[in-house]
């Protein structure tokens, strides 16, 4: 299998889908030149009618994509930073997420919104460092966030083929990750988490670049005799609670590594689901490794003080190991 960069995998997914289906179009700011190399070159192959540089009008071009999707195109919208969903919020939440329901199922909106460079790339300040992937899922939009090049390609392809709007978060800290990608056409189904490391002591559910932080953490934890099992959630919605619960059934302990605001966040959802559906499996309280709910400060020492990291995952994973709780039902509780 060839080893390629995450950004290249996203590019390949777009190019292959555009080749396969002439109704797929790409639009957004600077997509013809492609600042991160993801959409670079698409205009040369597919022409300016299918690869459109938009004016800086996020609400307008998001609405345009919705309208075009209703009429049968498959637009892939790019937001070049994670602040841009805020500017187009009505279009995303009130329109894209609800029109099908409100029209009694008359409408389909097969559109993809790629939020690229999401999260804190480093030193970009409060308005360019949010990692708001739970936000639109909270309002019911399908939301995915791959961590590996193989998933980046496979999940983006599924998103393009999906008949609903799908929000794809491209974690800034994953864009240069390299990894093996299967040859040939494949699509990774939405809503399936993946166990990326086996271990019996504690389950770490992670998403986006926190998967890599958790993998680094697991090596440090090994030295302390704590064998971590790591589950890459891959999708926020649909959320694969089955895989998570099965892992917790093996370990009895759960840490959620979530580089987003902890208040009402992704980790909160995972924790609530496990507490609600797998209470008897737990031998210790669930621990969240997440951002405190403050804007991201510019100053480098302040920024690193609030962002979760491998060291934070290690600290989080020690806590349930030290906690004393009456043993639950263990593996018997999960079917």
């Amino acid at each position, binding site marked *: 299998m060839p080893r390629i960069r995450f950004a290249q995998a996203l590019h390949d997914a777009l190019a292959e889908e555009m080749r396969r289906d002439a109704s797929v179009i790409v639009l957004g700011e*600077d997509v013809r030149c492609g600042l991160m190399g993801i959409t670079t070159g698409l205009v040369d192959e597919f022409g300016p009618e299918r690869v459109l540089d938009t004016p800086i009008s996020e609400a307008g071009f998001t609405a345009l994509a919705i309208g075009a999707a209703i009429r049968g195109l498959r637009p892939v919208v790019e937001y070049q930073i994670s602040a841009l969903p805020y500017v187009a919020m009505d279009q995303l939440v009130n329109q894209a997420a609800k029109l099908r329901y409100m029209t009694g199922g008359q409408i389909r909106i097969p559109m993809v919104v790629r939020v690229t460079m999401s999260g804190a790339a480093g030193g970009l300040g409060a308005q360019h460092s949010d990692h708001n992937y739970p936000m639109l899922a909270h309002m019911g939009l399908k939301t995915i966030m791959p961590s590996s090049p193989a998933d980046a390609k496979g999940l983006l392809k599924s998103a393009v083929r999906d008949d609903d709007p799908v929000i794809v978060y491209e974690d800034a800290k994953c864009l240069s990750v390299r990894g093996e990608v299967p040859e040939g056409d494949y699509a990774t189904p939405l809503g399936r988490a993946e166990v990326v490391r086996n271990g019996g002591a504690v389950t770490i559910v992670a998403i986006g670049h926190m998967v890599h932080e958790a993998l680094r953490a697991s090596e440090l934890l090994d030295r302390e005799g704590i064998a971590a099992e790591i589950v890459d959630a891959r999708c926020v919605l649909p959320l694969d609670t089955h895989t998570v619960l099965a892992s917790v059934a093996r370990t009895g302990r759960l840490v959620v590594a979530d580089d987003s605001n902890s208040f009402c966040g992704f980790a909160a959802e995972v924790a609530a689901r496990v507490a609600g559906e797998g209470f008897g499996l737990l031998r210790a309280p669930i621990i969240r490794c*997440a951002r405190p709910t403050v804007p991201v*400060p510019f100053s480098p020492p302040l920024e690193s003080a609030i962002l*979760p990291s491998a060291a934070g995952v290690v600290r989080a994973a020690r806590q349930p190991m030290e906690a004393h709780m009456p043993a639950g039902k263990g593996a018997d509780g999960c079917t």
Partner: protein
Amino acid sequence: MEAANVPARTKLLQAHGLILLRRMLLIREFDARAGELLASGEIMGEIHQYIGQEAVAVGVLAGAGAEALVGSTHRGHGHLLARGCAPRPMMAELYGKASGYCKGKGGSMHITSLEHGMLGANAILGASAAIAVGAAFAEKTTQSSRVAVAFFGDGAANQGVLHESMNLAAVWKLPVLFVCENNQYAISLRADHGLSVRDVSSRAAAYGFDGRSVDGMDVLTVYEATCEALRRMRTSSLPFLLEAKTYRYHGHFSAEAAILKHPYRPEDEESVWQRRDPIARLRGELLAHGFVPQEELDALHGDVRAEVEDAVVFARQSPPPSADEAFTDVYATEVAGLPDGVR
């Protein structure tokens, strides 16, 4: 300049030329130095250099007066320095130090000094211009004569909130000078590929106020146009839209060349604009009229460089903020019950 205006221009040159030149030089030197510091890894993140556009900030803010309230942009260093903000706390902000204007929490794209009437640089296009409209509204309610200056780029000109704000400012007769800095590009997008009109200023007509496009590479033209716009605003009680045609000499952000595979600007374009460089032009005129001797201009340049270097030393020597600063200034009053999480 038309012949009839020459004496007026000469008068302006004599009265204000040197101070305008100093401010433009300060911006250029500050941003050139900041670019070097970023490239060497001494400062973090990104900066958007104002180099090439100095005549706009300096001309507009000199014309608008020291009382004007200013909404800046992501490319804000020029606005701040033109306004008289100090290089030391600005540079310290780029270093993320506690002695920065925003205690290091803002960074390049968010430098703010309310004390100077600087409502803030902003990383969201169009946002600060729209907020400046609110500042003008507040002034109007107190019968003050202060105006607001709302800067935005040719790219931001297509942002919905700006259109809403221009309409609002007109309907409620607010004293806002909208200033579009048309530097020909929004990152890689040529202005004429994003704009429905050739002159952004022509959009003012849609909102029922006046607009004008001027040569943004000439500080005296920008200064005069600003003074004239403010006179018009006073008589009409309406906003005004001034467009300055200008050019950024460097990449959109400083690391651009390293990231982009293909240049999006024609090779000779920058040199065409460089021939109209606002600093060279003003310096040349001052010399030609004999208003300032060469030695004084050289000394001025040396002073400005020393001021920037002093700011760098100050920033380097300043302590970083303590880690708990990450949790202060979030709310004006205490909020309980927020999870802190393990990090």
